[in-house]
């Protein structure tokens, strides 16, 4: 459940031009790169950073939705939401595994998340205030994520692409789950419909910010595109998302909170109003409303679980010793 353009990757690399050209030739021939293959340091660094950010986003993303598991207003919704949040945890796990093939440990990545060194998708630094937020997140945030994640299934790095194939297969129910919630609210009581509109009003702009800065301002995009880590630009994906989402909102009778949103016949797509990039960068830099709470919660889970992990390792050591003594 992630779609933000990579933040702050450093694709710079010091290999010889000959090496880089040979590598680029493999990429251009659509060959997959596997962990033990020779690769430019910049490629490796970009991937560790991007897969790490992606994994962290899945893990932090469990919190805003997890906030409503205990209050889901029907047992059917409760089970579906629990299964969905569990999936996000699974996706984080697959992605950490993909990053680990590049020689960085999950513990290391976790520490970078907790120290604030590693970033995650800014969308999760907003609070979920009503049940409608759960529907809107599934519809918009997972919808935006799918736009980004489907092309990642063809990413040049094998383990990342394989993880994404599994993620995309599992996520196909997430957006439908969300849309069904919003639809039920939109067709429900006046209070329920107002709740859905309010949630759309709060989540719309953060959702379209998820695709990252405009192409003109996205400094690391070109190298990632050349290496086929990224297949579409931020603006291309944002446009696809808006074009797909507007009719879905119309069907529900909900209004997208952008007075400048209008169909552009010439480009066969929607024009949208100005995105508040100051807000985006504020949130990315850790000043979003829930940023401190999210990291505090993740850190608490990790720290409070330390004794469990230590006990498991201690027990494993005892088992080994006993087994050896018995042999």
């Amino acid at each position: 459940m992630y779609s933000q353009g990579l933040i702050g990757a450093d694709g710079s690399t010091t290999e010889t031009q000959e090496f880089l050209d040979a590598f680029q030739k493999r990429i251009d021939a659509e060959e997959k790169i596997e962990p033990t293959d020779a690769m430019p340091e910049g490629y490796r660094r970009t991937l560790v950073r991007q897969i790490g950010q992606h994994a962290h986003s899945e893990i932090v993303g469990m919190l805003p939705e997890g906030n409503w598991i205990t209050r889901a207003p029907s047992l059917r919704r409760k089970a579906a939401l629990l299964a969905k949040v569990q999936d996000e945890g699974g996706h984080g796990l697959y992605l950490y595994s993909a990053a680990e093939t590049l020689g960085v440990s999950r513990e290391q990545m976790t520490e970078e998340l907790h120290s604030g060194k590693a970033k995650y998708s800014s969308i999760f630094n907003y609070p979920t205030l009503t049940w409608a937020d759960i529907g809107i997140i599934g519809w918009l945030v997972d919808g935006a994520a799918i736009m980004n994640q489907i092309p990642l299934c063809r990413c040049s790095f094998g383990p990342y692409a394989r993880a994404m194939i599994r993620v995309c297969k599992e996520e196909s129910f997430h957006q439908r789950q969300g849309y069904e919630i919003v639809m039920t609210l939109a067709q429900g009581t006046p209070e329920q419909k107002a709740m859905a509109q309010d949630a759309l009003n709060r989540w719309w702009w953060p959702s379209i910010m998820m695709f990252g800065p405009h192409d003109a301002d996205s400094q690391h995009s070109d190298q990632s595109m050349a290496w086929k880590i990224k297949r579409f630009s931020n603006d291309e994906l944002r446009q696809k998302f808006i074009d797909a989402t507007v009719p879905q909102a119309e069907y529900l009778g909900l209004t997208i909170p952008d007075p400048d949103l209008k169909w552009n016949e010439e480009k066969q797509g929607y024009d949208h109003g100005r995105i508040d990039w100051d807000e985006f960068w504020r949130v990315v830099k850790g000043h979003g409303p829930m940023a401190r709470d999210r990291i505090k919660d993740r850190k608490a889970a990790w720290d409070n679980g330390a004794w469990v992990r230590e006990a498991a390792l201690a027990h494993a050591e005892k088992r080994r010793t006993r087994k050896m003594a018995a042999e």
Partner: protein
Amino acid sequence: MAIFEAILELADDHLVLGHRISEWCGHAPMLEEDLAMPNMALDLIGTSRTLYDHAGKLEGKGQSEDDLAYLRGEREYRNCLLVERPNEDFAHTMLRSLYFAAFMRPYWLKTLEMTNDETVRGVAGKAEKEMAYHIRHAGEWVIRLGDGTEESAARMRDAVAALHIYTDELFESSPAAAEAERAGVLPVRADLRAAWDEVIGQVFAEAFLEAPEVPYPQTGGRKGLHGEGLGHLLAEMQSVYRAHPGATW
């Protein structure tokens, strides 16, 4: 009516425990457990849904699974006290699941042999396997924590001291349950003691834990006499549903 109430007791046990376990989601000691615990919670909530639906039909007043789950207060809930105990820490949570599953597994196996209620038989066939896995998962953790570090062993002993007093209630039949037992719908709870003792005994032996003597077991859940925590659990769980009477979700 008695059978409706007896099924409701079972449904409440599963929903309340499933809810408690779901409170962990996103906060587990390791990512692998953030996947394992929702699996357990989903098993339990799934069973509760079938049982509520069945209870509503037995009652015949048109109550849906959600009406039964969301519109009864703490005095009307009929779960045993064990399942409502707070999560506290991972040791408490795993032990609570072990105690419950070690009771429910033989309960469902017995149900498969004797019940004359087809819906209950269907639930038993599925839930028996789920409970077998819960015993394994929670049991392996109890062993690791009991025989892990000094800290984990101390926490495990604390959990046993805190929770063992609630286990006798598992074997008690309320008047409603007793009637369902006489009617051949549900198995006799007291008969399952030996099977439970065997599982707990095996796990405790490997975990270096001792089951304490319990001079004064805590009971009362089947009469709606709960701890203070259940009211908070229900207030949270039911808040949205109750704030919008008659709405569809």
